[in-house]
């Protein structure tokens, strides 16, 4: 019944894995399945699984389903659930922790917009140490191809021109944009942070 990827049903194996690898994962077992988070989440109806379900699935040993779920990617960090959870679970943090873990294992859903955007944002930021808003926006518009990008650009034309007029958008940024002075130092910091994090989780970098 037990395979490497699918632990036995309702055994502690996957729960233990989550506890070891996911931010605030040790709190998952404290959920009392009241459903308050599910009812509080403004996006609840748009997800595959509510936080309540995700936590139950972890306890039921549904590793595959949890880690490939789009649920944790949909969390907007509104903190409604944390504010209301009677068991004080840091739900938002756990959701992001799960997303992060799924991403690192390469199990996170492909083409999930939040995930794609997050990757794009991260790459954009770590490249120069500054967020290049113009590139980020265009990258986002054109992620589904040229046609879709042009359509989206035209849709948002008014906003763009407004920003230009108000000097909130510099078209020259397209040529590379501003960056940190000590870029190499910054990259070293990021690499170090990752190394520390991986060590903490028992992963090799």
């Amino acid at each position: 019944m037990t395979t490497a990827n699918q632990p036995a049903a309702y055994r502690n194996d996957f729960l233990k894995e989550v506890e070891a690898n996911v931010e605030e994962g040790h709190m998952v077992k404290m959920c009392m399945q009241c459903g308050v988070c599910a009812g509080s989440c403004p996006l609840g109806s748009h997800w595959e699984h509510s936080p309540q379900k995700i936590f139950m699935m972890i306890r039921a040993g549904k590793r595959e389903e949890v880690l490939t779920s789009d649920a944790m990617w949909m969390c907007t960090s509104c903190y409604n659930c944390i504010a209301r959870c009677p068991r004080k679970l840091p739900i938002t943090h756990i959701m992001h922790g799960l997303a992060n873990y799924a991403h690192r294992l390469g199990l996170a859903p492909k083409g999930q917009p939040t995930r794609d955007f997050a990757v794009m944002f991260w790459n954009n930021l770590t490249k120069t140490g500054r967020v290049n808003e113009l590139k980020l926006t265009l990258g986002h518009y054109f992620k589904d191809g040229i046609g879709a990008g042009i359509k989206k650009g035209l849709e948002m034309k008014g906003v763009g021109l407004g920003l230009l007029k108000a000097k909130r958008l510099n078209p020259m940024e397209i040529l590379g944009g501003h960056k940190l002075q000590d870029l190499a130092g910054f990259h070293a910091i990021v690499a170090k942070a990752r190394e520390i994090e991986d060590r903490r989780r028992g992963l090799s970098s």
Partner: protein
Amino acid sequence: MSEMKTAAYICSGCGIGDKIDVKSLEKIATREGKMALVKSHEFLCGEAGVGMIRNDIDNEGVTHVMIAGCSRRAKTEAFHFPTTAMARANLREGVLWVVAEGDEHDEVRQEMADDYVRMGCAELKKMQVPAGNPATAQNKRILVVGGGFSGMTAALAAAEAGYEAVIVEKTGELGGWAGKSWKRVPGAAPYADPQDTGIADLIARVKSSPKITVHLSSTLAETRGAPGRFAADVATESGSVTTEEVGAIIQANGFTPYDIAKLPELGGGTNPNVVDHAGLEALAIAAKGDTIKRADGKEVKSVVFLQCAGQRDDSGKHLPYCSGHCCATSIKQAMYFKDANPNVDTVVMYQDLRVPGMGEDFYRSAQQKGVVFTKGKAAAVEPAGDGCRVAFRDLILDEDTALEADLVVLATGQVANSGVNIELPDDDPAKAQKTSVLNLAYRQGKDLPILKHGFNDSHFICFPYETRRTGIYAVGPVRRPMDAQQAEEDAVGAALKAIQAVENASLGRAAHPRSGDLSFPKVRLEGCTQCKRCTVECPFGAIDEDEKRFPLFNESRCRRCGTCMGACPVRVISFENYNVDTVGSQIKCLDMPDEFSEKPRILILACENDAYPALDMAGLQRHVYSAFVRAIPVRCLGSTNLVWITDALNSGWDGIIMMGCKKGDDYQCHFVKGSEMAHYRLSKVDDTLKQLGLEPERVVTHEIAITDNVRCAQIINDYVAQIMEIGLSPMKGFG
């Protein structure tokens, strides 16, 4: 007793004198009430006022006192004259505070006050100072049936208070279920871990107490008597019989776990790897804190607890109720596994996890320890490999699924060891199957009445552990499902109740709830027609029959509710200070306005325990109600004799509201069956109304709770409007 001398005292304080003509009241008390002495005072409950009354009692020979002022429920300490008979006319809560303000209401307000003074005087003249029951009984020992946790706790509580206790235990040893448990659910902070049962200590204390006698392997062959003078034949397995004389009895014989063999679909009785809580305790005791092993010796690596097994069942096949303790018990047992080895997979499968009070902390502690809780309903348990496969519906993930475990524990419920159901006919096979616990030699039957689901009745709303058999108390899971902590409270509470009962019996006074009442029912046997209504209707089994088939009152069993008095068709039952005449004379003494006066008169017969306080409270909160009503408190609606109704209708009252407590399985009646009896009797009033040519609406009944102050004002006002619509009674002037 010396010559009766009556006196009326009218208080003009609390604003009474501002709105009500006290001089007129004095005149009424003198001329119509025929009081020998009539005085008024501007502050009657003050030192001077009370002193005046006391002086008249001591020096003027006053034996009967009528106080017109506040409600009979107020200032009881100031107006405490135990050697005199006393009636109270409720001018403050009953008139001043409820009649609408303004001059236009002066007339009706005054009429109301006048009538209450008339009624107070009329009642007073029919009263006598209760002398107390001469048949006192002096035995103060307490018999405890059952030597488990509840029984031993009760016996020790009695012993510590200085009373001797006798424990009768059916099995060969003390301890009960708690004695067969490895640990108990914690009863003290931090509520994190199972706790020692404490049973060994209890047993040691019971054995070493010089005040406690223990009979093991014994049952009650027969129990006779009444509070203060019970005799219990204690029979041992070997056949010898000892008679224990005791003053009160505590029934603490506990529960039997629901038979798991009735749950074959969950493997109960068929699969050796499926046990119940008791079965797991046995395994835990064998393991002594180490990893628990199954019956076949295999170490348990995974276990699942199935909650509510055979409980909360609406199919009619199993127990319909929740036993309340089993969620916490399963949590405790899951901890046995986790504490011995955190790697054992433990799943608790529940539908609702019910851990009241500090149980929530215990639940959290189990989660910390890694017990997995899953909301699901098991469909089947089947053998699988070396263990069991539990097929179930996960109620959160909404899917049918399964899990495997070495051992399955069924959280079955508590079935009360309540003896025979005395309400079943003798030839009912279900009755024959059960063995009696108390073997009471009462005409009402051998055991305590059963209320619901096989549990012995105890007054669960107001007076837990008080049963319908005075001086016999039900504690622990025999009266409702419960855990050890609740049973402990029960046991101590019942011990104190038992002590109260034996002390009152020794003084010839009523036990609870009218604790200390000296009046008791007297029956004029010459007039008795042997109809047996009193015997049958007495909610407390206080009345037996003598050899000549006349009712035989056991006063120390009697609670003084008056239901027998209400039942008696020839009205030969009375109390010295409460009888057919004390109320009847009030009904007949009014100054009844004529049919064309547009002033109806509505009689309220209000239960003094709940409805009358609710009416007082309506006054206190100034909820205005009609000045056309006149309220008479009754001990219990069950004491209402139909003659009061006929008398009232014949004397021209336009309507009657009966206010009593809730009846049925969730009764709130102090006297359990009193209000039910009243309702039953009233169902026959329709005939009387028809005979008199009156509308059925002229007599109505309402169930009133003590909190219903707004509601009772509303009921009164609606009813008066309804009566105005029907028209006044044509019976006026004939009474």
